[in-house]
């Protein structure tokens, strides 16, 4: 069995206004204690039958960890699981909290892919988002490209006052060596400071039309640069797609370690307790048993996020019958949103923009 491993580091230097990720602001002492817990979590769930071929250390901002802590974590994975020598090992990182030297040390520790949360290069847009930034990130990105074989950037669309021009500026500042981009729509999560600012009228969101236009522009520019959209929000140059995330989109099993981390394992989904409960108890894992119907729905939901969809054979292998047979009524009614060949099924570009609407019809 070959799976991806996710490790959650729920710490940030400060909380961005729009963020609803599970992360908290904590000092060094808490982070150290947490790493101890994480090592214990890995050990507790030792499984020498399972090969890990991708590791993703996400957060929060795992860039806050010390290189030796990262090394320790990877060693623990190697010790208690089978860590593939060629594993893709990604570290998520806020450019604010690292410098060239730490990046080198991270590389040394075994990280071979870096994902940098940039969102935008534009100062005032970053301020609008309520995100901390003291220096332009350009130099750090350049350093990252020279240190890591693969580097990905996160960008955001839909920031109030963002324009085609600011986007163009962003694109101009992306160095050639970047092989992967995640482009997310700014999402308003209730109860975040940003949402309150929108509700109070302090900031005004762009119209859907404006955002759609910017997105179209961005896609066009990225294509020209040799990026291919391979998932709803992800773009990659050849061989640069995130192998770890492809595990999710292929609906493979995966293991999650750390506070709030989720695993899918043989039809059961486990969620670890969050801080501080996870530091205390043994029985802090929640379980959700996934019925066959649920697994099918999730399988389709994930696989249809991919631009190329999926091979029908794979569904057949997993569930024992052809997907079109299984969901004949749904595919009939929704035919216009799909490209269906004897081997492959994918959403059309428009269908992909309405992924949620289309997939909700598959709920049984």
């Amino acid at each position, binding site marked *: 069995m070959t799976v991806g491993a996710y490790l959650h580091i729920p710490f940030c230097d400060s909380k961005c206004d729009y963020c609803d990720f599970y992360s908290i602001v904590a000092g060094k002492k808490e982070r150290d204690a947490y790493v101890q817990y994480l090592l214990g979590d890995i050990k507790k769930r030792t499984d020498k039958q399972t090969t890990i071929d991708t590791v993703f250390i996400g957060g929060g901002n795992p860039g806050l960890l010390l290189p030796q802590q990262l090394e320790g974590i990877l060693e623990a994975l190697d010790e208690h699981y089978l860590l593939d020598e060629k594993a893709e090992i990604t570290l998520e990182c806020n450019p604010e909290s690292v410098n060239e030297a730490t990046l080198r040390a991270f590389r040394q520790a075994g990280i071979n892919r870096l994902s940098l949360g940039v969102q935008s290069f534009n100062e005032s847009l970053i301020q609008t988002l309520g995100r901390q930034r003291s220096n332009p990130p350009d130099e750090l990105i350049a350093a990252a490209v020279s240190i890591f074989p693969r580097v990905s950037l996160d960008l955001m669309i839909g920031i109030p006052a963002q324009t085609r021009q600011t986007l163009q500026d962003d694109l101009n500042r992306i160095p050639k060596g970047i092989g992967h981009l995640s482009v*997310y729509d700014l999402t308003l999560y209730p109860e975040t400071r940003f949402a309150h600012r929108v509700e109070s009228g302090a900031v005004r969101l762009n119209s859907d039309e404006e955002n759609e236009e910017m997105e179209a522009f961005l896609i066009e520019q990225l294509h020209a640069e040799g990026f291919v959209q391979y998932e709803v929000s992800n773009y990659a140059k050849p061989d640069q797609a995130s192998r770890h995330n492809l595990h999710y989109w292929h609906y493979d099993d995966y293991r*999650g370690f750390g506070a709030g981390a*989720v695993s899918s394992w043989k039809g059961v989904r486990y969620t670890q307790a969050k801080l501080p409960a996870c530091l205390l108890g043994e029985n802090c894992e929640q379980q959700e048993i996934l019925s066959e119907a649920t697994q099918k729905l999730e399988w389709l939901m994930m696989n249809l996020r991919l631009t190329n969809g999926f091979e029908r054979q794979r569904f057949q292998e997993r569930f024992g019958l052809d997907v079109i047979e299984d969901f004949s009524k749904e595919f009939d009614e929704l035919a216009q949103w799909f490209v269906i060949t004897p081997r492959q099924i994918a959403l059309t570009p428009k269908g992909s923009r309405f992924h949620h609407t289309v997939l909700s019809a598959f709920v049984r």
Partner: protein
Amino acid sequence: MKQKMIRNFGIIAHIDHGKSTLADRLLEITHTVSSREMTDQHLDTLDLEQERGITIKLQPARMHYTSKSGQVYNLNLIDTPGHVDFTYEVSRSLAACEGALLVVDATQGIEAQTMANIYLALENNLKIVSVINKIDLPSADIEKTKKEIESILGQTTIFPVSAKTGEGIIEVLEAIVNEVPAPTGLADGPLKALIFDSYFDSYRGIVVMIRVFDGLVKPGMKIRFMKSGAIYEVTEVGYFTPKKIKSNIINAGEVGYILANIKTIGDIRIGDTVTEFSRETTTPLLGYKEPKPMVFSGLYPIDGDDYPLLREALEKLKLNDSSLYFEPETSKALGFGFRCGFLGLLHLEIVKERLTREYNVTLIATIPGVVYQLTMVNGDIVTVDNPSKFPDRGKISLIEEPMVKATIILPSDYVGAIMDLCNKRRGRIINMEYLAESRVLLYYFLPLNEILVDFFNQLKALSKGYASLDYEFANYEAAELVKVDILLNAEPVDAFSFITHKDNAYYKGRDLTSKLKQMIPRQMFEIPIQASIGSKVISRETISALRKNVLAKCYGGDISRKRKLLEKQKEGKKRMKSVGRVEIPEEAFLSILMLDNDKA
């Protein structure tokens, strides 16, 4: 029990004057309900009544009271609703009684429904015992209230009480046993009992609520329902406390229930006389004059497959709400449903809610309207209770609408504002009287259609809550009315059509289109909404197309949550009605009801 020890009385009042709370005290003092079981407004047994704090259904309760003279009486009270829409509950209750306990709130005085209920009691020849309630409140004006009652009823013995503290309650009980006449039926005559209510119990069949006038009824007796002709053998009898308590017999003069394993709904008619099969009464009761529904609306199941369920639910609910009228109809937009008649908007809302809660059918209701009388060009006269069935204007020579005679009671300070309101609603004053020094009675003719929506709220707002309203059907009158249609995506949606005066058509059309724009979620295509009279568009709105509907991030930790969002979206869709390509949420139909929620 001997009839001379029995007292049957209904509790009547304007809404909120404290009938049910007073009943609580009576139940308490007579130890009918133990203090452990006691709850506020104990006789409001429906969840809906408790939640809304109003009584919807009549509810009998039997009590034993040992009077000051040491005699044990069998008292049967029936708590009744105060809202004008439920007056039929009051009249049905009073027909089973010899007395009425009239409750008047000392902080409000006589109100419109107080008057209406006094008339009902007098029509039924009941002895009225008057009480002034809420005397514990600082704003209580006992003297003034007393004078108002005196001037109407000519009574001088009036009992001040507090249903909250219990003050004065014993005196009221004494007055009931001393003043209200005992029943005087033929105890050994042939059974003659009045059906005043019923309900469906899925295990035991129909529970028939009766008042025995002559004779007695007990298990094993073969009975006949005289109007329906149905014959059954009684399996159980009993009474209410309000819990159903089994007993051996119900004698002349008593109120109770019978069970006879009755499953055929049509066999039970409210107002029918129950008699003994082998010894029939020769003087069946007159029964009730069925109230005429005033407000009509189409009820449709959101899920078309629920149509048979809805039919069954309506039939069963009618057992417990005999003023409900329904007949099948179809709508182009909504499919199969029922045109239903109600006594008012609150009644509509309650029926809809009860169907959903008690029978599990989710419904939408079309715009409520009234019944119009049309004289056609060819001389035919037709009545129309559904705007979508309105013939072409060209074929109609005269449209007449129902008028009501409204009674409004209010402090004289607000007369000007309320008269303005009535004039705006096309009202015509009939008369104005002084009830007391500063209390005025206004009589108006008003088009029923004009007071259905938001009239009552306005009335309350303009009088700081002091004006009260009662109305009854008067006659039909000609008016310049037009039919406004609503088009979604260029398709007329019959369920949204409505009739209004030509002067109001424009703003009402605009109001509805803009409401719909807010209520209908954006879809994958643009949706124009138009209001039109005939082919003339009078207002227009557009719901722009949804640009995108995809969840930005979806990684390992998000899968369950995102799947649940899909499930939620699907669930939400179940509460949407597809009309053509457009999906309309249930709430949109609710919002167009624009219900005048408050109490009359």
